[in-house]
């Protein structure tokens, strides 16, 4: 009834359709780390860890033994910076104490927990289109999907997949990432989305706000993932279109994702349910 060529064409069309349907289903990443996925990650991750450790070992030897002269010079600079930081630290302690008093006064809930877990980056995404990293801490260490991942400079990303000993972190520069944030000065709110060339787009910021280049963007804490007040980056470009209600803001993250090696996972306890006062 049908020629061989016709059957082949129909077969290819059916295959493409099935492929697209399956991709649509699997695009909901919640099911990504089911059993075969965990086996795959357990097979690859130890080798990645060994390879990364070797690279770090060689690089550390290079840095420590061949750059001693530079280190000595840097050390002088660090000493000066340390002295200055010491002064700032005292000042910040004062702020902390007054902040503590004020928070108690206003009965504010603590916005960030002190419980953080350090982890090492053992692998990066094989594709230039996606920005994820693999870290060496997993479910056995208390890591859960959705936990915030930070570094001292600011927000790094969010845990998206967890296996027994390893987790995958979606970086804030990935186009699938979203962080609720606000400009520190005028509290203009928006969503930080991954952009291009390791930059982020600060979306849905109303035109009425006067945002300037260099303004600091911090997390708002309203997304329930990232603690409030963590640095995200600084505004590097602002375009105010003649029409429309939003402006286009580009944010350069403080975190250097190229050199991301260690991260901190914020082990936030489950948020208490709101209970009205008796």
């Amino acid at each position, binding site marked *: 009834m049908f020629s061989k060529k016709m059957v082949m064409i129909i077969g290819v069309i059916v295959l493409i359709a099935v492929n697209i349907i399956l*991709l649509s289903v699997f695009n909901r990443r919640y099911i990504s780390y089911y059993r075969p996925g965990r086996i795959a990650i357990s097979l*690859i991750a130890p080798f*990645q860890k060994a*390879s990364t450790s070797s690279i770090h070992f060689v690089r550390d030897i290079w840095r420590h033994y061949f750059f001693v002269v530079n280190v000595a010079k840097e050390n002088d600079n660090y000493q000066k910076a340390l002295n200055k930081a010491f002064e700032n630290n005292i000042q910040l302690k004062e702020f902390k104490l007054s902040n503590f008093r004020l928070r108690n006064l206003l009965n504010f809930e603590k916005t960030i927990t002190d419980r953080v877990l350090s982890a090492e980056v053992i692998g990066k995404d094989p594709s230039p289109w996606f920005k994820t990293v693999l870290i060496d801490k997993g479910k056995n260490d208390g890591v859960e999907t959705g936990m915030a991942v930070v570094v001292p400079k600011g927000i790094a990303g969010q845990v*998206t997949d967890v296996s027994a000993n390893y987790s995958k972190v979606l970086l804030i520069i990935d186009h699938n990432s979203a962080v609720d944030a606000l400009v520190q000065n005028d509290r203009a709110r928006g969503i930080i989305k991954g952009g291009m060339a390791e930059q982020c787009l600060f979306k849905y910021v109303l035109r009425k706000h006067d945002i300037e280049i260099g303004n600091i963007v911090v997390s708002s804490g309203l997304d329930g993932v990232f603690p409030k007040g963590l640095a995200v980056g600084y505004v590097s470009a602002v375009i105010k279109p003649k029409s429309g209600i939003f402006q286009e803001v580009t944010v350069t993250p403080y975190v250097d994702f190229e050199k991301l090696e260690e991260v901190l996972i914020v082990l936030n306890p489950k948020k208490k349910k709101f209970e009205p006062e008796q």
Partner: protein
Amino acid sequence: MTYCLHILICLSLIIIQTTVMPYIPLFERFYDLLTPFIIYLSIFRSVRESIVIVFIFGFFMDIVSGGPLGLYLTAYVWLFIGVRWAITFLHVGDSLLLPFVVAAGVLMENLIFVGISAMFEQSPRIFETMASTIVVQVLWALFTGPLFLMFFSYSHRQWDRWFKEILAKKN
């Protein structure tokens, strides 16, 4: 034993790609190292021997990558089918054609990625950088792709010879 070699090569390529290459600025926009291997399997190895590897490592790549699950699997399967189809009328074993085959393979894989990314969300601004990345990757593939194919072919010959020697010693 051939499967062992394939698994060893694929694992090494994934590890190099995810741990070594990100630290070398020159290879910032290098193409997926498994692409030439899939092309090698399509051209020089049997379907029975290759298809298992294509599926397993497509899935592995999906797991280590941040893309939608099935993205790499889709790309590898269609790349495999495409090259198998091409060798029915092209003498791609010819060393002069190999750079172009690898470049076309890299282009095809990227087009699949772009197509799927366009299907699921994505802001239009993201596609601006994609074009330049694809061009860079294709150029890399054009110049380095055949070297990978030669390396895979050489590894295979050495592996077979080594295995035959072991068998001969046993007998």
